[in-house]
């Protein structure tokens, strides 16, 4: 199927779920891309995975009682995030240990709850691996508003997030409330996960958070450029992934993640400064003066 036919399908009224899926997928990737930058820079990938699993019992409850999935997932994710933040204050246990406890517990709870619903296997699969059909109109608004809220919060708290990511002790000495900001960041991660679960699924959502930010990190040494590139890479991959998935009748979540992974690998090999090719060229040729990584890369140019 050509890209043109794909756009025609997007406008086809009988396929109205398709533009909705595209909107949700693109919005999710943008929000996840921005939030993911902090996660990649702070080494929070494991926390992201945890949150992705932690929202599951909330989704399950919402599904069983027929409530709003975004709301249910958010509540469950926030409760888990708070539990982790509080229990991690105990110096005897490392944070990743506490996470390991709650993350699996939350997921287990989700499985038990959802098994109470009729048609359990199908809905479980839909949660775990995502589905582009069946996004209700109301979710469009919820996803849009939630996404805007997350982005606005990041815009307002950016300098605090940077300060606590660089060096927590000095941030405390400056009178910054590190604990509260950590909680806010966890909540933002939770919201990003919850709005993304519909299209990409519970397990694969981690890729939406981590891969675009990791790719952007390979391409630049500037935080601003990174936080611009990550959502762009995510959104383009979501569009491309949805197109491929629709054309070849392949699972959407899986294809989007694979598209992101290809982008990551391209950056790994072709990034202007840190890429393998650039390194090989530098080591064979004369040493070049340090130049800033440009925000554009061969990969992005090829894509546009």
């Amino acid at each position, binding site marked *: 199927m050509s890209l043109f036919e794909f756009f025609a399908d997007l406008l086809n009224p009988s396929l109205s779920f398709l533009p909705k899926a595209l909107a949700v997928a693109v919005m999710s990737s943008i929000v996840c891309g921005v939030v993911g930058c902090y996660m990649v*820079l*702070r080494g929070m990938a494991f926390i992201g995975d945890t949150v992705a699993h932690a929202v599951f019992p909330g989704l399950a409850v919402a599904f069983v009682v027929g409530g709003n999935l975004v709301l249910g997932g958010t509540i469950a994710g926030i409760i888990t995030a708070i539990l982790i933040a509080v229990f991690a204050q105990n*110096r005897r246990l490392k944070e990743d240990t506490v996470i390991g406890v709650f993350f699996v517990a939350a997921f287990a709870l989700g499985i038990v709850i959802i098994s109470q619903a009729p048609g359990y296997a199908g809905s479980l699969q839909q949660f775990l691996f995502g589905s582009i059909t069946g996004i209700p109109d109301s979710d469009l608004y919820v996803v849009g508003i939630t996404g805007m809220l997350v982005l606005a919060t990041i815009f*307002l*708290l950016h*300098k*605090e997030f*940077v*300060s606590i*990511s*660089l*060096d927590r*002790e*000095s*941030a*405390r*000495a*400056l*009178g*910054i409330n590190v604990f509260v900001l950590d909680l806010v960041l966890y909540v933002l991660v939770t919201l990003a996960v919850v709005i993304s679960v519909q299209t990409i699924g519970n397990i694969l959502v981690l890729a939406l958070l981590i891969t675009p930010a990791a790719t952007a*990190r390979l391409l*630049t*040494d*500037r*935080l601003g450029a*990174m936080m611009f590139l990550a959502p762009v890479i995510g959104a383009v991959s979501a569009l491309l992934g949805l197109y491929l998935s629709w054309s070849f009748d392949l699972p959407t979540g899986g294809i989007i993640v694979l598209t992101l992974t290809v982008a990551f690998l391209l950056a790994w090999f072709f990034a202007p400064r840190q890429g393998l090719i650039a390194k090989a060229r530098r080591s064979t040729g004369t040493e070049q003066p*340090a130049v800033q990584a440009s925000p554009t890369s061969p990969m992005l140019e090829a894509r546009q």
Partner: protein
Amino acid sequence: MTITVETPLLNVADVSVELSGRLVLEHANLRVDRGELVGLIGPNGAGKTTLLRTILGLLRPAGGRVQVSGKDSRPGRTPIGYVPQRHEFAWDFPISVSNVVMTGLTGRLGLFKRPNEADWHAVADALERVRMSDLADRPVGQLSGGQRQRVLVARALALQPSVLLLDEPFTGLDMPAQELLTELFTDLAHEGRAVLMTTHDLASALFTCDRIALLNRTVIASGPSSEIAADTAAWMATFGVGAESTMLRILKVR
């Protein structure tokens, strides 16, 4: 020398600190006056970092008080510049030198506020002071150890603090970098700040610091470097070594 009853810039008065039920500092007394570089020396686990954290107001003393210019220390309210050990900082973060220095103003700027021109001037001044202006746009990950240490000092200076706390600034640096920094710290102190520095480098501390404080759970001795160097008993008490230890012999050689 005339004796004045001026309140010291930094006054640690009879401070005891408890960490998870254990008394780490007991009745510690220390004062650092304007224009002084004071070296804080003690073995590992003596409570040096604990003392610094207490001065910053991050730990609440179980007894006694910490005052800066006569006022109790509170995080974000007291003009103290803090330079942590280099490994505490995320050097792989994609951020430029000047933006790191700007984070020193985060607390004062307050929530939701963006830096204005005066703030960027403060950053430029701080970078100028540590002679890093020409590297202002460089990503911090590309700096050498000595340059990184100077960035951290500039970040602490951005708030124009009257008290500066340095935690092991020389660890892992080569001699030229150490000497450059020593000169900087001496100048910063003699310009009218109170500078307190923890260090493991006993010999160079005795040469460069105006005063030395020996710490092991409390301040065992403090005074002008030459006096402290001669006080064999205090060194033995602080480090738990015998009269014939290599460390004491090195001290006597100077």
